[in-house]
């Protein structure tokens, strides 16, 4: 079963008992799943349970060397979609992508990798 990883994450993040939810506070940091993909097409969804005022998320796909003590999309090892303004980020550069998302929204992430 694919779950939020307990050992592949910033330690300050709080993971739920069922390992399907995570809560952060203060500055951006990262958590990844227990399983990765390397070829083919894969999709996953995230629900924003709570997003208090002043909080934000950056969700997407990361490679192994992505910095866990920075937001996803900080370096060349990650690509993210931000809740605030719906901006996409890669290597610290934000570009317009969509309108923002927030509490109650369900977000889908598709990755298409070569089969070989």
């Amino acid at each position, binding site marked *: 079963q694919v779950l939020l990883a307990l050992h592949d994450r910033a330690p300050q993040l709080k993971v739920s008992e069922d390992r399907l939810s995570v809560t952060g506070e203060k*500055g951006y940091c990262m958590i990844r799943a227990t399983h990765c993909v390397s070829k083919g097409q894969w999709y996953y969804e995230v629900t924003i349970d709570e997003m208090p005022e002043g909080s934000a998320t950056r969700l997407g796909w990361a490679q192994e060397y992505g*910095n866990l*003590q*920075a937001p996803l999309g900080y370096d060349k090892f990650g690509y993210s979609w931000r809740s605030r303004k719906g901006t996409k980020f890669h290597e610290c550069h934000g570009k317009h992508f969509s309108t923002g998302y927030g509490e109650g929204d369900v977000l889908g992430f598709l990755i298409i990798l070569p089969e070989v």
Partner: protein
Amino acid sequence: SLPMAMRFRHLRETSKTSVGVFRSDIHGRGLFCLRDIEAGEMVIEYAGEVIRNTLTDNREKYYQSKGIGCYMFKVDDNFTVDATLKGNAARFINHSCEPNCYSRIVDILGKKHIIIFAFRRIPQGEELTYDYKFPIEDEKIHCHCLARRCRKYLN
């Protein structure tokens, strides 16, 4: 002989009367004793803004671009104290290859603090110094500590 936490509690007040910032022969300004300091005495905390280590590189580049001298002290693998824009007199303590003080990361009630201690008895008027212990790098920074066994470079 008192517990570390108790010694630390009084440090904020005592350091204001025990040390002061003056012009240094080593480099720019330095921290000097205003009274005799005993060996092992807690001198001052290196206080500043506590930041995550992932922020240090960008901050350093920003300070360099503005011509601001960078004053940072790494606490552990996660955090650094940045005293560049917010800090106390400890930021002025110069390096020496033969120092009279040393630094220690001390855990007090669950929080880590950088504390400067005296190696030996330091008479009034002497400049306080500690070994910065910079990692070795190709781009060298010259040392002007005036010590007999000066290592010539900070890094």
